[in-house]
């Protein structure tokens, strides 16, 4: 591959329900610490959710927090953290050559629900509907707030890709870097979804909202007793650069994106499709020029829905069945972080390049025989010795599939 087409991760910023930095997050993943808690939401009895507690005022004033959205705050926090982590001399960077690409599952629900509640207190008088509604709900809001905060004058977009959005943000950035439209990408995914009651109520109506007496045990991908999704908020954002630029400035390289793929099931609004998922995985592998045996760790998507986990396990068996490739799941710790899920799940596994350890999938009390994942890292982390390639799955509603393959950079 041409040197300029090689895209690397040079900085990481994140907020997850169990950590506000890569170090803290990774520590809790290795220690089996969940971030799921009980959560109050409008019109419903308490639900379970992954809630973040990052410092909103680290990079924003109170006024900016008030003016913008939660997704915007998450995006601003993670972007600043990633840029600081990258060692980029930000004052010297040509801001017109920085692009912001953030995956989102949904946007606008939070603000719309809040405003409808507000006008309901005034007999639905639309004269008290907020003038902030439009700038808060346009789909590009989270990425736009990053450009405002960091004075970035290059392009910005959000990528709507349901629960595949985190990977999709990285893929969009990779493509723009290869096209040389930008020199630095600030990319990943964000979610504010716990702040809308509608998402909880809809999963509940679908019979897909997890319940459990102990919040930490509620998210149970691949377990027989799983009963649905725990919704989470969060953000995972990286700085991405072309390899020659990263090397020229002596950047630390946290991984290289060697393969990617997206496809569509074209079969159902909500039910996933293992054949199309397997196709997507194979496409990513072929683009990376590797075989299933070359992947050390699969970071699975599994959300703990009954059928979803079975479909993904079937796809993984089809592709990796005769390998020793380990499989784990981050949603068991933090719930389903929607637009941020793919990003956070990849980032939680990246430190494996350094310590050779695959974090666990917690809450596996009785592995579902219909899932049959012989290499599932269950309950306790597993020392894999050496991890060189991680494959990250993310699948979403309307049958959207995404796969990212990241390799340890060894020069």
């Amino acid at each position, binding site marked *: 591959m041409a040197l300029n087409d090689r895209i690397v991760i040079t900085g990481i910023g994140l907020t997850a329900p169990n950590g506000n930095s890569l170090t803290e997050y990774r520590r809790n993943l290795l220690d089996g610490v969940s971030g799921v808690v009980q959560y109050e939401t409008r019109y419903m009895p308490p639900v379970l959710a992954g809630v973040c507690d990052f410092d909103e005022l680290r990079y924003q*004033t109170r*006024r900016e927090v008030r003016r913008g959205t939660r997704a915007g705050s998450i995006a601003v926090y993670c972007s600043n953290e990633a840029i600081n982590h990258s060692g980029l001399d930000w004052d010297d960077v040509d801001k017109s050559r920085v692009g912001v690409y953030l995956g989102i599952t949904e946007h606008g629900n939070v603000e719309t629900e809040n405003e409808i509640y507000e006008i309901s207190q005034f007999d639905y008088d639309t004269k008290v509907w*907020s*003038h902030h509604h439009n700038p808060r709900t346009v789909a590009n809001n989270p990425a736009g707030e990053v450009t405002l905060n960091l004075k970035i004058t290059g392009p910005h977009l959000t990528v709507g890709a349901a629960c595949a959005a985190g990977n999709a943000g990285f893929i969009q950035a990779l493509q723009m870097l290869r096209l040389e439209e930008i020199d630095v990408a600030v990319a990943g995914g964000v979610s504010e979804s716990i702040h809308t009651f509608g998402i909880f109520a809809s999963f509940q109506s679908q019979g897909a909202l997890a319940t459990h007496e102990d919040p930490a045990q509620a998210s149970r991908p691949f377990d027989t007793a799983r009963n649905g999704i725990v919704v989470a908020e969060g953000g995972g954002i990286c700085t991405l650069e072309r390899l020659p630029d990263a090397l020229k400035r002596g950047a630390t390289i946290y991984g290289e994106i060697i393969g990617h793929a997206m496809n569509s099931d074209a079969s159902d609004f909500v039910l996933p499709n293992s054949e199309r998922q397997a196709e997507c995985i194979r496409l990513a592998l072929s683009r990376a020029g590797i075989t299933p045996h070359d992947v050390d760790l699969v970071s699975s998507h599994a959300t703990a829905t009954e059928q979803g986990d079975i479909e993904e396990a079937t796809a993984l068996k089809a592709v990796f069945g005769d390998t020793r490739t380990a499989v784990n799941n981050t949603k068991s710790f933090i719930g389903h972080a929607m637009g941020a899920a793919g990003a956070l799940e990849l980032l939680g596994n990246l430190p494996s390049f350094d310590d050779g350890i695959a974090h666990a999938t917690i809450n596996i009390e009785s592995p579902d025989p219909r899932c049959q994942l012989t290499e599932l890292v269950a309950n306790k982390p597993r020392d894999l010795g050496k991890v060189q390639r991680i494959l990250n799955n993310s699948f979403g509603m309307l049958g959207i599939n995404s796969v990212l393959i990241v390799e340890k950079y060894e020069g």
Partner: protein
Amino acid sequence: MTGEEIRQVILDILERIAPDEDLSSLNDTVAFREQMELDSMDFLDIVMELRKAYRIQIPEDDYEHLTSMASTVTYLEPRLKDVPVAG
């Protein structure tokens, strides 16, 4: 409401809209925008909060009267004289 009560209402609104500002040394005769960070969206917040709390509709043509604390209180006094302070 008295002029003093109106002034306090406006101060409370400003505190919510501009939470990072120190309003203790606000000069009533100088334009708000010259003393604090306030853009057109913030200004509409003032209009909106008054609308919600006191059901007072301020026509767009009258916005020019709301430039400073003194001019705002002068403008609102006759319009809010029979209205009690909202709880």
